[in-house]
């Protein structure tokens, strides 16, 4: 039995086996019946013809073994029912015919089975292929849907961020790809298709064209990235500001294939930047005005601060002259006096410089600042003002504090405002009048600086009100000092707040981050 037969036998159920052998019996019986009927009517058909048909049918439908059974049965029926008296040679001849026919049918059945098997295999392959194709189509549809969604998101993102993307083959090439947003930013109608490069170039403001052309030309020559600002003149005449960035794509041999990049409409961003700059300038002006107001209040004290070393320098110089003009000049004493005069002259110059730096008007200049130095500089300038009101200033400054990244002028202004507030709060209270200034490291990489006084304290139930603009309890103030101080501290990522003291007075605290400084 070959593989095909084996396959057929082993795959058919037991019931089917019975049916197959039954078909052999049935077909031979049918051949017998038909031969009898034909014989009854004296028709010229022998049993052999019907038997061959029965054998063929059995082989075809029931397989080899039932076919052989049909051949054997046919031979027996013919020998014993139709030709019982024939010679042995005649019987053997018929048996040989049945046998040859059976052998032929066996081969036919085998070929058919092989064909069936191949058809089945091919069908299975096709079914599998069909399934794969279905899956591929489903995957393709899914990817296509995801791609469409992604494209939609990208288009929406481009629209929201006013950023268009493009691809352009270098001169004399054309624009290869323009996203929808490119059309909007550049002021083109998408229905008219991708514009030629020359048409795109014509939309650039005439004053910017030469510069843009130069930037692009240089980038293409060097196969480098480019980035340039330019203005776009829309068909309506509206002028927009844009930023274009391009990146070269090179083939494996290093030749330039194309540029890909973006066009960003930065009109609103630039306007916002200008507004922010104007706001910063206004804040700086206000802070400067506030500082000058405070300096005005300090005029008498500052004059005294400058006057002291000048007086000492003048006296020292006079003393020097006296030592030199004596009958017997004393050079050593004269030199000592002259050195003292120089020292005091420098001290006066230092104080004037400090006052001048406080008076200067300028933008924010951040640098690493020693907060204790800032405190001591301000205290040196204000101490005399405090003394005028019988107020003593004590300092308790932490050692080895990390530096902070800050604008020292602005931080000086904050400390000056807080000390001046404390002086104002203590002018009319009984003794003792003490201002305590502390600096220390706090948690979360911050420094805390506090200014405490024994003055009238904060307004009841509204401690934070003192930071509102135009809130003041003074007869001469305009109520901006603390507001400006809080703005300054917050612009340094710090916090400024106030708490009442017991039994009287107030403490103002502010924090400054040291994280930036320590990272360097």
């Amino acid at each position, binding site marked *: 039995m070959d593989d095909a037969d084996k396959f057929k036998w082993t795959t058919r159920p037991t019931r089917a086996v019975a049916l197959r052998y039954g078909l052999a019996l049935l077909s031979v019986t049918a051949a017998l019946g038909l031969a009898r009927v034909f014989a009854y009517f004296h028709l010229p058909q022998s049993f052999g013809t019907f038997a061959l048909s029965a054998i063929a049918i059995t082989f075809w439908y029931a397989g080899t073994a039932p076919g052989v059974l049909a051949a054997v049965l046919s031979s027996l029926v013919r020998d014993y029912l139709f030709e019982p008296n024939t010679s042995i040679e005649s019987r053997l001849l018929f048996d040989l015919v049945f046998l040859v026919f059976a052998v032929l049918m066996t081969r036919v059945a085998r070929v058919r089975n092989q064909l069936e098997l191949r058809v089945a295999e091919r069908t299975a392959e096709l079914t599998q292929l069909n399934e794969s194709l279905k899956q591929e189509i489903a995957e393709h549809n899914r990817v296509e849907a995801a791609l469409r969604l992604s494209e939609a998101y990208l288009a929406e993102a481009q629209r929201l961020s006013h950023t268009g993307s493009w691809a352009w083959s270098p001169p004399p090439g054309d624009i290869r790809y323009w996203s929808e947003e490119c059309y909007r930013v550049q002021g083109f109608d998408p229905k008219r298709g991708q514009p030629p490069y020359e048409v795109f170039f014509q939309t650039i403001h005439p004053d910017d064209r030469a510069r843009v052309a130069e930037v692009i030309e240089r980038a293409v020559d060097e196969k480098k990235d480019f980035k340039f600002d330019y203005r776009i003149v829309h068909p309506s005449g509206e002028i927009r500001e844009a930023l274009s960035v391009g990146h070269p794509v090179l083939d494996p041999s290093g030749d330039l294939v194309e540029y890909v990049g973006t066009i960003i409409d930065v009109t609103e961003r630039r306007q916002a930047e200008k507004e922010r700059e104007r706001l910063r300038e206004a804040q700086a002006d206000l802070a400067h005005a506030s500082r000058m107001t405070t300096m005005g209040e300090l005029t008498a004290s500052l004059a*005294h601060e400058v006057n*002291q070393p000048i007086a000492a*320098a*003048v006296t020292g110089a006079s003393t020097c002259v006296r030592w030199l003009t*004596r009958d017997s000049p004393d050079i050593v004493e004269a030199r000592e006096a002259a050195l003292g*005069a120089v020292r*005091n002259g420098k*001290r006066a110059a230092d104080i004037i410089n400090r006052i001048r730096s406080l008076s200067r008007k300028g933008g924010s200049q951040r640098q690493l600042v020693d907060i204790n130095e800032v405190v001591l500089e301000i205290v040196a300038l204000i101490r005399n003002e405090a003394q005028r009101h019988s107020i003593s200033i004590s300092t308790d400054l932490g050692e080895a504090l990390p530096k902070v990244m800050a604008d020292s002028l602005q931080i000086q202004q904050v400390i000056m405002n807080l000390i001046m507030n404390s002086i104002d709060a203590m002018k009319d209270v009984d003794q003792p009048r003490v201002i305590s200034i502390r600096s220390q490291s706090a948690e979360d990489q911050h420094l805390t600086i506090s200014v405490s006084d024994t003055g009238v304290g904060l307004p009841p139930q509204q401690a934070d009100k003192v930071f509102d603009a135009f809130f003041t309890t003074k007869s001469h103030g305009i109520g901006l000092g603390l507001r400006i101080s809080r703005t300054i501290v917050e612009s340094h990522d710090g916090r400024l707040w106030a708490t009442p003291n017991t039994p009287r007075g107030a403490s103002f605290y502010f924090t400054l981050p040291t994280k930036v400084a320590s990272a360097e």
Partner: protein
Amino acid sequence: MSPRAESKFVAIVDDDDSVRDTLQGLLKSVGFSSRVFESAEQFLGSGHYHDTACLITDIRMPGMSGLELQARLNAEHCRIPTIFITAHGDEEMRFQALRAGAVEFLPKPFDDEILVESVRAALDR
């Protein structure tokens, strides 16, 4: 210079050490001995003020002011010739000081010649 002046000294009271030192240097250049004090309280507490022939004092200082020091000395009938030097001087203050017996009231920076002559006059009293 009288013998009395030679045994006594000039007291300089000022909270600014540069002013104290330069004043002492000036007086030394003209042959006057002096002692320096950084506050009115330190001067009063030194126990030397009865030996002081002349007092040069700042007006505005932490704690007791120069005018309060003068009043305190007057109250104790300790009539030391006093020269005020100040960077904050106004006419009212000047009048108040001179009325209380000050021999001179000099705004900073002052003319060293006037100061020296005032001290000399005080020591020659």
